[in-house]
């Protein structure tokens, strides 16, 4: 499924392969602050991460996970600092970013089929008027196939299970040929098998050279899915390999005992 050597050619679906680039694709945050109005929900976040990793944003409610994710997605202007992708401003290269909304924010009654949803991913390449060509249809087919959604492609999205719904949105991200996948609480509302298969999927997407960034609140499963973690409470309290970040000592700082269930 991976063909890293042809990376970023235009006749194949781009599966990432960032670690084959010199130094890899790098996402770098420099002293980033963002928030609502004058209020800063996150402050002074700096980190660097390359493709091939899955990063969990971990912290209590209101810690700024969504704000950071939205800032990365370009949905919220940052108040100060810089977000760079391979040294250039991230939001100059919109097609590199795919955003997956929370399942609860999606109108599942919307009259649209899985295939049409995935075809949306071609928008950044096609713009409003250029028709879908054979190349685009091929990419959509491959994206559906990669996420085992080919048989379900003509279903209306509300007729899918929770796990299948997440796979449909991931297929859209693949069709977009985005390197950075931003997911807002992707495991919310999934049953255990659905969550396990989504976890495996995110890991394999990262291994193939994409950069997966997700807000996540389940400390128990974080290390199984994500190899990097950012512990957040307005400021970055710890960042690095997941096991090293989620130490009892660190967690004590972010989740005081009184707030834990």
């Amino acid at each position, binding site marked *: 499924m991976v063909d890293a050597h042809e990376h970023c050619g235009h006749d194949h679906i781009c599966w990432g392969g960032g670690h084959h680039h010199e130094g890899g694709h790098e996402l770098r945050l420099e002293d980033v602050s963002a928030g609502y109005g004058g209020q800063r929900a996150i402050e002074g976040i700096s980190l660097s991460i390359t493709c091939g990793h899955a990063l969990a944003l971990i912290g209590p409610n209101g810690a700024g996970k969504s704000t950071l994710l939205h800032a990365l997605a370009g949905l919220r202007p940052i108040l100060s600092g810089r977000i760079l992708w391979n040294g250039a401003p991230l939001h100059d290269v*919109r097609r590199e970013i795919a955003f997956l909304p929370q399942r609860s924010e999606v109108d599942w009654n919307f*009259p649209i089929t899985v295939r049409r949803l995935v075809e949306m991913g071609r928008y950044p390449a*096609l713009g*409003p008027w250029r028709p879908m060509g054979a190349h685009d249809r091929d990419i959509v087919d491959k994206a559906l196939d990669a996420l085992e959604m080919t048989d379900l492609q003509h279903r209306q999205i509300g007729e899918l299970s929770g796990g299948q719904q997440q796979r449909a949105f991931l297929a859209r991200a693949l069709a977009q040929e985005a390197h950075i996948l931003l997911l807002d609480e992707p495991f919310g509302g999934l049953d255990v098998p659905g969550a396990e298969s989504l976890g495996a999927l995110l890991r394999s997407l990262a291994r193939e050279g994409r950069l997966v960034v997700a807000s996540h609140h389940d400390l128990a499963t974080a290390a199984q899915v994500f190899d990097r973690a950012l512990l957040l409470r307005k400021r970055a309290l710890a960042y690095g390999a997941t096991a090293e970040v989620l130490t009892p000592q660190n967690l004590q700082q972010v989740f005081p005992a009184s707030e834990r269930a």
Partner: protein
Amino acid sequence: MNDFIQFLGEPLAQRSLWACAFIGFTNGFVSALVVLRRSALQIGTLSCALLPGIALAILLFGLLQVSILLGAVLAALLVGLGSLFVSRTARVEHDTALSVLHTAAFAAGYVILIQLGLQQKVDDWLFGNIMSMTDTDLWVAYATGAVAMLGITALFRPLVIFLFDPRAAATMGLPARAYNYGIFALIILVLVSSLQAVGAFLTLGLLVAPAATMKLLTDRTELMFWGGGLIGGLGSVLAFFLSYPLGWHLGATIIMVLGCIFLIAYAATTLRRK
């Protein structure tokens, strides 16, 4: 029956029939926007908020088509944005503020129109009167319909992404705010241009029922628009042929026919699923 055939021969009847078909189609087409944005109730309140704008325009400039149109748009904007402003600056929810402002606006409009001695007109604006539409009214309706259909068709691909997933649309670089205001402006324009046909109370039905029916019948977004247009247009024409022989009010008949079509589609689709 002979009466009716004779009536159909008159230019007034033919004009009204054509107006029914066109206004019905335009509203049905645009109703997909209202349904897919899930903003039916907001639009309902706005349609009533148009009244004071119309009344004030008449008070200040007389019965001029252009000023009435502008007055209606201004009133809708004032109530719409005003309620948003109030809810953001005080501890009231948006729908609460909207309810207070739009009923107050509606009441003010009603009082002004009665004071101006326009009782007959009041009825037309509340419940509609296609027969009373002037040539200018019809041209405004045609122009609005053409703008709405061309605009939606030309920007269909990004529009669907925006309607379905505004966050992903913004991430892909679509100007979300422009789309928001554009859609709002388009709906208000269609609302005002069809106000005389079905009236402030009933216009919401024409701007929701056709696409609501299509939502029961299709999984394809584009069919919400074109199918909605067909249902709106054909339903209005059917209502025209029913209303004369039965002596029913035309605007009310249109809304009843569209309501019946929705209920039939609902019954058919839910029974088939069981």
